């Protein structure tokens, strides 16, 4: 579906050159859930931003359904690839009601006629388990979990095929996180979506993603089926990463790989 072909990106800060991404190759197939993990500065968010067209790569190309994505996205490409960010508080406009927030993508992409706008917004809210009374409310009257649900509804508004989720649950409490993760999984099955899930929480990855990409310093360290990588990690870095996960059960400790 999305082919990432030999992408490199560097940032120049003063006189230092930072190689954020170095020769990344990745094939994202339809209906899979890809997890991209790595520590801060490993390049995972840069990769997402390049797929979304926020940054332009220095080298390489991105193919979407076999066609190269140009420097400026067409409206169709923007419609099909959508984004959910980490902090819902800063991604929702505080001066707009939830109705206006959700109406914007519907208008831009001409999803529904004007007279059906409100019923479509109600439908979107029902997908994420929110009542229609939320339409008239402002973001600051919502809890963190509810805001993230609105952000997910907004991403779904343009009927995308790919959702890029950049740490969608790391700003949430564990109980709320469990609810939002379950919601994301339901939505994925309902709309046949492809997920690119960027996170550093490996225990979440283990339970939601079927493909795992481990990134370290701008390079892909390891790639494979999630359960294979967890049961038999190849690189030292992946082993350390899995070992560092804080666990709550003794049975989980036994699953961690042994460090040399």
């Amino acid at each position, binding site marked *: 579906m999305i082919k990432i072909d030999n992408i490199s990106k560097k940032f120049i800060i003063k006189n230092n050159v930072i190689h954020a991404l170095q020769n990344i190759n990745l094939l994202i197939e339809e209906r899979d859930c890809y997890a991209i993990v790595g520590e801060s500065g490993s390049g995972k968010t840069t990769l997402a931003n390049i797929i979304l067209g926020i940054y332009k790569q220095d080298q390489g190309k991105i193919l979407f359904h076999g066609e190269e994505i140009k420097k400026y996205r067409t409206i169709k490409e923007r419609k099909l690839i959508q984004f959910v960010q980490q902090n819902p508080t800063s991604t929702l406009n505080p001066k707009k009601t939830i109705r206006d927030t959700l109406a914007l993508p519907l208008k831009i992409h001409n999803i529904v006629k004007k007279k059906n706008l409100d019923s479509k917004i109600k439908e979107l809210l029902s997908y994420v388990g929110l009542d229609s009374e939320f339409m008239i409310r402002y973001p600051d009257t919502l809890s963190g979990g509810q805001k993230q649900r609105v952000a997910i509804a907004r991403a779904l508004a343009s009927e995308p095929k790919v959702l890029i989720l950049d740490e969608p649950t790391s700003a949430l*409490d*564990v109980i709320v996180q*469990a609810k939002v993760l*379950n919601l994301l999984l339901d939505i994925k099955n309902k709309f046949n979506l492809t997920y690119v899930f960027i996170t550093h929480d490996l*225990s979440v990855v283990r339970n939601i993603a079927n493909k795992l990409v481990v990134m370290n310093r701008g390079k892909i360290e390891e790639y494979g089926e999630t359960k294979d990588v967890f049961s038999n990690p190849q690189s030292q870095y992946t082993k350390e990463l899995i070992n*560092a*996960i804080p666990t709550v059960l003794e049975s989980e400790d036994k*699953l961690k790989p042994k460090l040399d």
Partner: protein
Amino acid sequence: MFNSLLKIEDLELSFKMYEGISTVLKKINMELNKGEKVALVGESGSGKSVTTKLILGLLNQKNVYKAGKIIFNQRDILNLSEKDFKKIRGNNISIIFQDPTAALNPVFKIKNQFHEVNLNYNNKISRKDSYVRSCNALEKVSIRDPERIMESYPFQLSGGLAQRVVITMAMINKPDLLLADEPSTALDVTVQNQALDLMDDLTSQTNTAVLLITHNMGVVRKFAEKVYVIYRGVIVEEGTKKQIFENPGHPYTIALLNSIPKLSGEGLPKHDDNPPDYALIPKYTHKSL
């Protein structure tokens, strides 16, 4: 009782706001012994961070109503004057905040910020002595080039390094009590592990008691000896680490543990759509060992 360092008795806190009175803490009881590592676990808004603020005497606004006792070293510090609190803060009680880059002042070099902490220890210390004292402390936490760190501004350090500096700063005066408010939440898993190990190491050396505030049960399991679970201003369960993790008694604690995705990959955690009001269910206390 000789061993008791901090005792919180029937602590109540409420804020008077435009909409009315909002009660944050409802008769909380806690106890920390010398050198003990205790965790206070709960979700956002449960009142865990305000508890640390009360212990440090940082809530003195007019709209704050507080009652109960905070007994630190056999002395009630809840209504202490600001002048007396200044002697305690940084010397007897110190704190580590969640975001290390926000905890350090961006316009001062690390050495100047260390100097201020050292003045707390000895108010006549010279700049040179202060520099040496800080470098020694940084070397102890396996920072190889303390001189470079001392000459840096906070934004020149990585998150993990900045948190190391903050931990060192909090521990340099060998306090009796260290309050750690989500010290590792802003960090990556590998760096988080190192920061926790470092905190464990330093506090064990000086026999400092730690009150760890967190919402991450995995971190609690790694670090704490005794655990208090707080929900909407009520302590719902207390017990040793072993008791809480192997035999949780309160429905909220069970829900908290169940909602964490497991490494075994048995699927996403189940959740209750209509949970009961956990605050109404009486507190579960494990038998003391």
